[in-house]
């Protein structure tokens, strides 16, 4: 009897030891310490601009040569053009975007007060468009959607990114963070594999950036056109041969919130030029 008890106690001890090891492993990763632990310290954040070349930096800095400005100009026209059943334009309610939209994009994604949903700037614009203007919503990645976001986001040029992850946003943040650190696809890589563990190093001819979202929508030379953050994320998913999530999907929206939190303090650059 006594012997049997000793054996089962020993088994229990081994079990407890294994359990302790199992718990200790994830705890050693920076990821598991706390969900708001910053892997890249705030003072070491770098915009994607730092990883481009001299030519790309010059193209972005020149407000005439920057091809993104063609979309900005189109966006300005959309802003001032009445649309929908009530014949209202964006300007009818918001006035001059240069003042009313200053810093707005830097706060998104955010929980919408009316719908209680997490909305990025694209979804927020479409909410106004279909709800207030009673006009058809812009299709994702359409020229008009890229133009109006380029125009609105440009008003946050130089404004530091700062999103809230409090309240209802917290669960989106946690999901986005879990997505960011989860290995996926045939290449079995997470976002962090490149953008936190290997930024600054070469991937073929390119320099890996920190994957910061402060510059969207971007004119990407590879695309020869403008694209949103979600299009860029899809390009990464394609690169690691993972499931391509649709633009505007809840998963990408959650990652967008995590990325914006991660980029806190980086200044807005839209419309940026990237390779």
């Amino acid at each position, binding site marked *: 009897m006594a012997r049997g008890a000793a054996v089962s106690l020993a088994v229990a001890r081994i079990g407890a030891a294994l359990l302790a090891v199992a718990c200790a492993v994830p705890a050693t990763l920076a990821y598991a310490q706390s969900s708001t632990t910053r892997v890249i310290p705030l003072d070491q954040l770098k915009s994607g601009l730092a990883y481009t070349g001299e030519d790309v930096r010059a193209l972005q800095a020149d407000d*005439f*040569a920057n*091809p993104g400005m*063609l979309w900005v*100009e189109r966006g300005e026209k959309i802003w001032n053009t009445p649309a929908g059943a009530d014949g209202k334009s964006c300007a009818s309610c918001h006035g001059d975007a240069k003042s009313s939209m200053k810093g707005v994009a830097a706060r998104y994604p955010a929980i919408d007060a009316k719908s209680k949903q997490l909305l990025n700037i694209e979804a927020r614009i479409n909410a106004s468009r279909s709800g207030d203007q009673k006009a058809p919503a812009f299709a994702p990645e359409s020229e008009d959607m890229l133009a109006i976001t380029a125009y609105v986001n440009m008003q946050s040029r130089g404004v530091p990114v700062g999103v809230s992850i409090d309240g209802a946003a917290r669960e989106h943040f946690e999901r986005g963070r879990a997505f960011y650190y989860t290995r996926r696809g045939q290449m079995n890589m997470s976002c962090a594999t490149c953008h936190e563990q290997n930024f600054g190093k070469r991937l073929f001819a390119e320099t890996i950036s920190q994957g910061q979202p402060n510059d969207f929508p971007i004119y990407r030379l590879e695309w*020869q056109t403008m694209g949103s953050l979600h299009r860029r994320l899809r390009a990464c998913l394609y690169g690691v041969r993972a499931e391509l999530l649709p633009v505007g999907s809840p998963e990408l929206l959650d990652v967008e919130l995590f990325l914006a939190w991660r980029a806190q303090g980086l200044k807005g650059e839209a419309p940026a030029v990237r390779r």
Partner: protein
Amino acid sequence: MADARIQIAPQVKRGDSFEVKIAIRHAMETGYRVDDVGKPIKRNVIRALVCKYNGTEALRVDMSSGFAANPLLQFWLVAGNSGEISFEWDDDAGTRYAERAAVTVAG
């Protein structure tokens, strides 16, 4: 809607050369690409772009598939009289475009 942007100095001096810049929003589809299901994408590039200074042809550009999307052209003209600089171009899709900008010559 906002198919092009033109930049000219606000005022130029007679006899001086001045820079004209035009950026055009155009996909410049080469005709060599295929879509997601393998169907060829029809070529659609700007065919010819003509710039006129007060009605006189100043520049003609024959574009082709080799041009990048959203082309930017920069060139110099000699200032004559005040008036306008006009651009006209068409593409393979048959769309015609026109943009103009005023030029003010002093002296």
